[in-house]
């Protein structure tokens, strides 16, 4: 691979844009196609399918074996709430390869001492999420228990194509949340996308165990079925 191709590929990944590297396995000819260029490419059909599935593979094109290496943006986990569960979830999710961002306007919670080595945004979720932009490679978890902070985050996540949305709280807490989101104009079917109570049912008790159950559910949403964007197409 030429260094300039690798360098442009890394720049696209850093900017959270998808790209594809096509390699002719016989001639070793290689080129980089950015997501925005796919539609006009002779291989548009195969490249588009690759971008949608996120899967790399070999295709036959005019008698040549071409390897299509699909590079989709790193999966991102946005955690609303710099709380105890988040302190366990952040390093676990990072180990699992997720790009973690913690959002909490309470500066006593959102400190670098409590959250080393992750992106920490000590601001309100509506402002923070609008700035970083949510996409279909993003999961959002609301963990503060405080509607003032959780709701703006859930509101933004429901308006985006996030592949996973989860919210901490009991069934009773969630019923109250559903009423507030309905009143805010969200459709019942959309609200049903929220995993609540959050996490896999493994009887988790401690903050770290709850983090395991949340991370397991996020990985399940990512790997077990296509993202909502793939099955439902663009949202109206």
């Amino acid at each position, binding site marked *: *691979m*030429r*260094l300039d191709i*690798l*360098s442009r*590929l*890394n720049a696209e*990944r*850093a900017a959270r844009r998808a790209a594809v590297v096509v*390699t002719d*396995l016989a001639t*070793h000819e290689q080129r980089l196609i950015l997501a925005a260029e796919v539609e006009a490419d002779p291989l548009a059909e195969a490249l588009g399918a690759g971008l949608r599935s996120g*899967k*790399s*593979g*070999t295709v036959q094109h005019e008698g040549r074996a071409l*390897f299509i*290496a*699909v590079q989709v943006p*790193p999966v991102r986990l946005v955690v609303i709430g710099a709380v105890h569960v988040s302190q366990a979830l952040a390093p676990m999710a990072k*180990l699992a*390869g997720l*790009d973690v961002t913690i959002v909490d306007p309470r500066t006593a919670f959102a400190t670098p001492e409590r959250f080393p080595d992750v992106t920490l945004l000590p601001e309100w979720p509506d402002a923070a999420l609008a700035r970083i932009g949510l996409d279909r490679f993003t999961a959002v978890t609301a963990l503060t228990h405080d509607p003032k902070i959780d709701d703006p985050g859930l509101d933004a996540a429901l308006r985006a194509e996030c592949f996973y949305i989860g919210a901490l709280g009991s069934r009773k807490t969630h019923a109250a949340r559903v009423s507030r989101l309905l009143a805010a104009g969200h459709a019942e079917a959309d609200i049903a996308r929220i995993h609540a109570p959050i996490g896999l049912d493994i009887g988790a008790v401690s903050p770290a165990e709850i983090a395991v159950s949340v991370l397991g559910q996020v990985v399940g949403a990512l790997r077990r079925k296509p993202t909502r964007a793939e099955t439902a197409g663009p949202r109206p």
Partner: protein
Amino acid sequence: MMATDDDILAGAEAWRRAGRGVALATVVETWGSAPRPVGSHLVVDGEGNFLGSVSGGCVEGDVVTEAMDVIADGAPRTLDFGVADETAWRVGLSCGGRIKVYVERVD
């Protein structure tokens, strides 16, 4: 440190920019039970340091050796790994799967 896909590709670029010889190995095909999916990367430098993986650790040693040859002569090559007894002369995959790995130099 644990390497994610991003670290691996960024690592390849950083190593090359630091003047090290670098090869990129990519799983291009799998059959049956394979430990790492198509598209997985292993980055190797001229001294045999590596980041990432193309299997569960079964064939990395062999890929690293081949990658050092690729760094030396610049010619990309495709390596096939099958179950251990089919390819007794080289390491195999005990899981019974087969993988094809493309190795190229970063120039």
